[in-house]
């Protein structure tokens, strides 16, 4: 990035070649739509290009890059939800439950060409169902293989908060993906994952 800062266009090309696929994949998993993900990825690289002269190597380049990508993705999701809410209010005043619209919107954006019983779809549904910040944490942790310090900088939280976030996310995934994994995940009658603290109760070592 320092070479890009010095005006080396070829270095920017190298950055693009190296990071465009991870950025597009991350954004695709965040916004659940490849066309939108590519638009956002272009915006990410344009912002990098625009601010190349102001770049200060205080953080790792990937941290900076994915922080831009995460913020753009979260803004896009928020704007999309607001838009969906506006549309649904216009269509029917009776349907005022935000969750209903959110689920419908999500279902619409998951790859409609795949069959319901497709394993990949089931995995994607489980990841998509995570709250936005938990999903971003899992994607950066699992697919970008970032360390905790980096992810906490990208998500602007402490490492301790990040570990809690990841624990809650993987706990949800553990329950949601239990049928695929072939194990019976411990959960409450309501389907809520059982806290780890509950698991050890009544047991003696």
């Amino acid at each position, binding site marked *: 990035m320092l070479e890009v800062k010095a005006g080396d266009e070829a270095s920017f090309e190298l950055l693009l070649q190296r990071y465009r696929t991870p950025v597009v994949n991350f954004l695709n998993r965040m916004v659940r739509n490849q066309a939108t993900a590519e638009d956002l990825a272009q915006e990410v690289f344009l912002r990098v290009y625009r601010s190349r002269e102001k770049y200060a190597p205080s953080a790792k380049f990937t941290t900076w890059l994915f922080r831009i990508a995460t913020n753009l993705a979260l803004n896009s999701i928020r704007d999309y939800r607001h838009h969906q809410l506006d549309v649904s209010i216009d269509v029917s005043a009776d349907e005022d439950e935000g969750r209903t619209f959110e689920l419908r919107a999500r279902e619409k954006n998951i790859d409609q060409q795949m069959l319901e019983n497709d394993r990949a779809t089931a995995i994607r549904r489980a990841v998509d169902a995570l709250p936005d910040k938990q999903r971003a944490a899992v994607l950066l942790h699992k697919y970008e293989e970032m360390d905790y310090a980096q992810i906490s900088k990208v998500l602007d939280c402490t490492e301790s908060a990040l*570990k809690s976030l990841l624990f809650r996310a993987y706990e949800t995934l553990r329950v949601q993906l239990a049928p695929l994994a072939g194990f019976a995940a411990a959960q409450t009658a309501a389907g809520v994952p059982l806290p780890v603290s509950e698991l050890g109760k009544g047991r003696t070592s």
Partner: protein
Amino acid sequence: MNCEPISKLLIPFVDGRADMKERGRVENHLQDCAACRARVEQYRTVWTILDEQPAVEPSFGFDARLRARMAAEPRSRWFGWMVPSPRLAFSTALLIALSAWISMMPPAQPNYQASLQPEKEFQMIKDLRVLENYDVVSDFDALSEMPATVPGDPGATNPANDGQQQPQGTGTM
């Protein structure tokens, strides 16, 4: 068994990013807790399952579209450093205007108050009753021992006192 303090360490344990101390704590706990052992195995399975999610490749026109957008961006030029930013340009213009305005102003009037001061002192000395003939006594040595205080002028200082205060004043400098 209290699994709560260990729960947040299970993911770092599974992904191999826990430090030695955390790893030791988890391993000690897992020796005695079958539930957490099972949970760790399930996390490992979930971790593997997530690998099945396919990755996408950017579409064919991605690079071309990006290059077109980059080409539309204003480019930095070699003489870019000479092009002032709006704030700098405004500040410079303001400074030049202020300098021009000051230079166009009429020259400052002499300080009449300051120039009148010696005349006033001269008049005061001349009016002293003891100085009947000012020209004669002006070089008289005893004059220097005369108090310069004018009755009714509290702001005036006593030369004798000044003489005493001088060392004190210079001492503080």
